[in-house]
């Protein structure tokens, strides 16, 4: 059992949890994730680790409510316990001094790119961050990102805050202005990572993405998470989750992510109906 010590709603449908997990807190590096299972009947889902505090033995998870499990987790309060948290899993991000790094976060992906932006900054890179959201009320971690970035740009799809448009629009601006960019890290919805990768490809700007495929065990045992990178099958949970965006077959990823769309709808509707009754 893993106890929730703090819980905070960061934005509509986006919650932050600080959880007691000393073993994981000691080991986790930026880019790694955990698998969690809420209770005996729960499914196993991957969540990237946002922050760790090895001294206190805690990890921070930022979770968007999208399906049954994440909605249910949204009702968990400080003091509640999560049945299982397994990790840290996956390969850590490669953090090196490369020069100028553009860290891009789309929606809740901002919580995942945050520790990496921070680590790149600590390594002495010039960090430009672009974080994008649907609308003002979904903006998260702006202050945190500002602290670890040399420049920060916020975009919203509807223009209600920051620049109107997508993160890729801002990136395009930077590229067209002739800014020297050595590395792009893009983490967010698959479609966003695809657009960013397509954008940087002709310029030959190295682009790293973090693939959020469907997982079961998270240790290489099942192959649920398989993705195609450079024409080869890879397991996102052990070979990734980070890959060269220019090599990833995003269309396949997007299709595979929708594999249980129908079941996810059934489960969520059933859950929300029950919750409504309670």
């Amino acid at each position, binding site marked *: 059992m893993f106890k929730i010590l703090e819980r905070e709603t960061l934005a509509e449908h986006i919650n932050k949890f600080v959880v007691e997990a000393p*073993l994981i807190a000691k080991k986790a590096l930026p880019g790694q994730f955990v698998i969690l299972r809420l209770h005996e*009947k729960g499914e196993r889902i991957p969540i990237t680790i946002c922050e760790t505090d090895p001294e206190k033995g805690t990890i921070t998870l930022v979770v968007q409510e999208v399906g049954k499990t994440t909605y249910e987790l949204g009702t968990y309060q400080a003091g509640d316990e999560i049945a299982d948290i397994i990790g840290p899993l996956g390969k850590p991000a490669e953090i090196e001094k490369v020069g100028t790094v553009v860290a891009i976060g789309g929606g809740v992906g901002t919580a995942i790119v945050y520790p990496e932006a921070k680590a790149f900054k600590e390594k002495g890179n010039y960090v430009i961050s672009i974080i994008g959201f649907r609308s003002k009320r979904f903006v998260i971690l702006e202050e945190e990102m500002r602290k670890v970035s040399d420049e920060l740009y916020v975009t919203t799809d509807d223009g209600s805050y920051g620049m109107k448009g997508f993160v890729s629009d801002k990136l395009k601006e930077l590229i067209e202005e002739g800014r020297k960019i050595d590395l792009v890290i893009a983490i967010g919805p698959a479609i966003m990572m695809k657009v960013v990768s397509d954008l940087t490809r002709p310029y030959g700007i190295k682009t790293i993405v973090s693939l959020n495929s469907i997982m079961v065990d998270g240790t290489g045992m099942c192959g649920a998470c398989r993705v195609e990178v450079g024409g080869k099958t890879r397991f996102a949970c052990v070979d990734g989750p980070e890959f060269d965006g220019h090599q990833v077959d995003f269309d396949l990823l997007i299709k595979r992510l929708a594999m249980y769309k129908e079941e996810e709808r059934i489960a969520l509707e059933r859950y929300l109906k029950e919750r409504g009754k309670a």
Partner: protein
Amino acid sequence: MKKIPRQPMPKQPPEERIKNFNEVALGYTEELAVKEAERCLQCPRPFCVDGCPVKVKIPEFIKLVKERKFSEAAKKIKEDNVLPAICGRVCPQEEQCEKKCVLGIKGEPVAIGRLERFVADWEAEHGEIEKPEMPEKKGIKVAVVGSGPAGLTCAGDLAKMGYDVTIFEALHKPGGVLIYGIPEFRLPKHIVEREVDYLRLLGVEIKVDVVVGKSITLYELFDMGYKAIFLGLGAGLPKFLGIPGENLLGIYSANEFLTRTNLMKAYLFPEYDTPIKVGKRVAVIGGGNVAMDAVRSALRHGAEEAHIIYRRSRAEMPARLEEIENAEEEGVIFNFLVNPKRFIGDENGWVKGIELVKMELGEPDESGRRRPVPIPGSEFIFEVDTVVIAIGQTANPVLLDVTPEIKRNRWGYIEADYETGKTSMKGVFAGGDIVTGEATVIEAMGFGRRAAKAIDEYLRTGKW
């Protein structure tokens, strides 16, 4: 005296059982068990024991069954085998003890496995599971990584010798393949839980959710005061065919299909959260026990047609005969001498067909089975909604990649001494599928047992 025939196993009728995940074989009644036990000749030189990898004292326990001393019979088995309810269900007895039974020469061997199962279940039902007498604690810590049959056996034996044993398991539930792989209808999970509880009774501590190599390393375990480590990691990495279209939607590895079904209880979706997609026409590729488990699970998930696609013929299938027969009774359709060349998808990326090529059997290969060779131009399309690939597993490198001191062979399995389980890293022992490659529950247990002995010796003498 009239010859008693081998007593058949009462089973759920096929048309019923394909609608549920409950156990197929119902087990002997006391009467059937005693009657079957009476068939045993009590050979003074029992060959059956030679056939048993852990040398259960078979004639002795059967004699106790005959005398209706069921509780004593259970104790007798447990002297050599800590997991009798499991072995009685899943051991390939026809290739081990029963193969050597003298009665089998002219007729049918004694149903040793069924008797073992009966005795273990009887003991459990009658609440007579007792903690054996335990020696004084030695105050020495040993770590066991992996809670499959190898790890469980090793841990149990070490605990009985007085060691403080901690098992570290990556999944959220202990049991290894017994929990995530073998289906409920062949091995009910409460039986595995019962056996795991017995280990807890012996004082074994079980820590789940710990991926050794990720959450903690072997070096750290030694630093924490563990004096020896046993690795029972299993062969958990799924093999794929490596043909075009394999990542289409609706194509599962057997590991994923069975894990969703057994560990995550996807057959109870949406009461349980984990979903599984099983269409009307399911094809399982492979001919082993894992393939049989997958295809029979597919039927229970509601498939209208469940097919086996196997590249050799029925005679070469590695699955146990009993399981093949069960599958046949349940209406599984077997397609022999065909091999997949590629998968074909629809516009949304879902698998809709497999291109199969017909095969014929040629010369025997290194496994002694006749090698299948494709017949040119015989390709055809086999329509499917769901595919499960059950062509085998290999070693999972998660722990070994971060522990280079442990030598591996060219297939990625650990090089360990057969008698002791010693690896190339001091204080680290290994056994089960991670050493032998995919084998059996009982062989994994045998390995765990030999390693426990060797660990004890190492810790007493300090000699490596």
